[in-house]
């Protein structure tokens, strides 16, 4: 049976901020020009053109404006942006988690460094296709766009590409929203690199994770890591080199790696083949087992489709999330209200009986009761305000929760689980630098 591939080739993109070059006293781009005859760098001018294009279409927003701009978005009804399969709210959350991680990461300062890093486009056999020299403090989208554009200019007009990128979902969104890469969009399938998938929301993973997304096989976008590791010995010397010299050296190294990789392609195929066969056998065995207890492939496919549909449904999230938050607050208020009422009641009992605790007299107790009553009134007002902000569903929901221990516990458990997930993600981002180094070394040994 012949089935066409969903994508003809698979490429991955990654940025690296360790390959920097210090700012010299003179602007050393003007130094004597020389270039590797088979350079893999996209010319500066081409990158500048893309940058300018992006700037005109999407003027750069100032940071504080952006922050304000995002807040009201939370109140807007959630939905799909045209062409996207993941709800806007999810995409926004993914974007935020990565920008946060990005800001925390120590970025190359443009004050001290003239070149701040490299961005690479690699094929699925870990060979470098093109590189871009980065000069900005962070990972800017136009570098990616320049790479992809350049790539497509070298491809026959019918070739479809699977593109793995840390924040593939964000790239997809920008392309759809702003019309970047318009002439190639119908030939690109976006996905996220496996290594960074944990930073994405679950609905985003369902759509963009290469293990879940049709067509990617076992490509995972890890090749970039291996490449960074292979050129890491150049970091110290290139940091103080001239502009052209740095690019030339990297080009030479890439040439060498290409040559080495050519010889190893045979063993690469061999290794992948054995791995795939093993995994396939295991999977087939499991499926046969399941079939024996009545779970057929058809059923599983339908269930998966249902799961994707359900878990990427927009209304399931946004508006409900906001309501849930308010309900949580009301429940909290209710609890403290109960405490205050109980305290006030105790104090009133004291007044009635005339038996005061130590260091207390009637006046003091009266004052305290008044204070508590005031607090209670404030809480009640806040609660009714919050209740007012809830929709009909929210109010019904609240009533159910008020009277039901089980539901309340469940809401708490869910909140807790979300918090654990967030903490884990943050932790992983923090550890990323470390883990990268470690995995690089391991990967280097395996090859």
């Amino acid at each position, binding site marked *: 049976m012949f089935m066409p*591939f969903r994508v003809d080739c698979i490429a991955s993109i990654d940025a690296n901020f360790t390959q920097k070059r210090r700012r010299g006293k003179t602007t050393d781009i003007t130094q004597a020009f020389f270039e590797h005859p088979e350079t893999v760098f996209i010319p500066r001018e081409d990158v500048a053109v893309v940058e300018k294009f992006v700037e005109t279409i999407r003027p750069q927003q100032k940071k504080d404006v952006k922050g304000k701009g995002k807040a009201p978005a939370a109140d807007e009804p959630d939905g799909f942006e045209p062409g996207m399969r993941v709800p806007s709210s999810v995409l926004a959350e993914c974007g935020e988690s990565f920008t946060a991680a990005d800001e925390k990461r120590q970025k190359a300062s443009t004050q001290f460094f003239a070149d701040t890093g490299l961005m690479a486009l690699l094929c699925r056999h870990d060979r470098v296709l093109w590189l871009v020299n980065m000069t900005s403090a962070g990972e800017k989208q136009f570098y990616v766009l320049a790479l992809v554009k350049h790539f497509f200019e070298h491809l026959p007009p019918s070739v479809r590409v699977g593109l793995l990128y840390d924040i593939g979902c964000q790239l997809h969104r920008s392309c759809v929203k702003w019309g970047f890469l318009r002439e190639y969009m119908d030939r690109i399938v976006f996905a996220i690199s496996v290594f960074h998938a*944990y930073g994405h929301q*679950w609905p985003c*993973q369902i759509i963009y994770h290469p*293990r879940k997304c*049709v067509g990617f*096989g*076992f490509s995972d976008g890890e090749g970039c890591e291996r490449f960074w590791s292979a050129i890491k010995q150049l970091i110290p010397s290139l940091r103080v080199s001239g502009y052209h010299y740095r690019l030339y050296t990297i080009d030479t190294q890439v040439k060498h790696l290409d040559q080495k990789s*050519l*010889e190893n392609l*045979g*063993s690469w*195929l*061999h290794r*992948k*083949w*054995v791995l*795939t*066969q093993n*995994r*396939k056998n295991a*999977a*087939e065995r*499991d*499926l046969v087992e*399941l079939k024996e*207890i009545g*779970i057929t*492939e058809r*059923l*599983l*496919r339908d*269930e*998966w489709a*249902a*799961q994707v549909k*359900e878990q990427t449904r927009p209304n399931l999230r946004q508006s409900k999330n906001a309501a849930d938050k308010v309900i949580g607050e009301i429940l909290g208020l209710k609890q403290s209200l109960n405490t205050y009422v109980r305290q006030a009641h105790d104090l009133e009992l004291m007044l009635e009986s005339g038996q005061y605790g130590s260091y207390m007299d009637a006046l003091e107790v009266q004052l305290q009761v008044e204070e508590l009553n005031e607090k209670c009134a404030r809480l009640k007002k806040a609660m009714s305000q919050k209740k007012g902000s809830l929709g009909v569903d929210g109010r019904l*929901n609240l009533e159910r929760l008020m009277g039901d*221990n*089980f*539901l309340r*516990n*469940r809401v*708490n*458990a*869910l909140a*807790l*689980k979300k*918090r*654990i*997930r967030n*903490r*884990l*993600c943050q*932790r992983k981002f923090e550890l990323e630098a*470390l883990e990268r180094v*470690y995995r690089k070394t*391991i990967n*280097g*040994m395996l090859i």
Partner: protein
Amino acid sequence: MINLNVCVAKKLQSHAEDQIKRKEPGILQLAKKYNQLCGELKVMLERNEGPRGAVAPLPIEKDGLFNLDVDDDIWQDIGLEDRDPSEDIPLWLGDDDVRRGIKVLLELDRCNEEQRRLCKEREAMQEWMMEEWNCLMIAKEHTDNIDMLYQVQLTAEYLTQLCVIWQTKVRIVPTEELPSSWGPTLEELAEARNFLFTANTVSTENIAEESENDIEEDDEDEKDVSDEDEETELLEAMERMALANEYRQDEYIEEQYGESSQTGSPERAGGQFYSA
């Protein structure tokens, strides 16, 4: 070099683990609290205190919590989401076997995709080789220039070697439509194999091992030689060997090798040393 890598890797791994542990208590405490809540919910369900159709949420497992793999339960809020009690719980949410099955099925899909891609890549590999070889042979026929012919011969040698390396490795990947020949004739391939094999036997590692063994023997035989002298001599001999070895790996010098042994072949260097 490899040992060093292992060392560094170990060190980094332990460091990474330490780092994780430092923040782990906080996260683990949250996980514990969560599991406690799950336990309470389960008890309530057993006492029929929950709403109709509710299922108990899954507790978090502490092992592998930090993997955050796409297939981990941490992403799924089973039993935590509010559901319409009139609807049945869908199988992908409530049935463990179905949930496992979906993962396995997707894995199988990826396996099949990967397999097809690998087959294609293997074919592309052979086609590339055949084409390169073909072009080279045509170029050979069309020229009498001795310099050009030499270049053709060099490229041919490189290609046949590459072909030998590749063929042995990718034999495992099946292919249907391509001929068994990759371009170079069997004789040419045999020659390349021979060359590769011969070159492999004189890799630096082997020589280093041999000399190490020999040194031990020497130690036993000649205890009267002072250590310092022996060390200098040993270093010199090894240096000569390494130098000779570099020459030897160069394919073009190999043929003249026997004649130029006076400039310091391993045998000679070794001979000098061992006879001392």
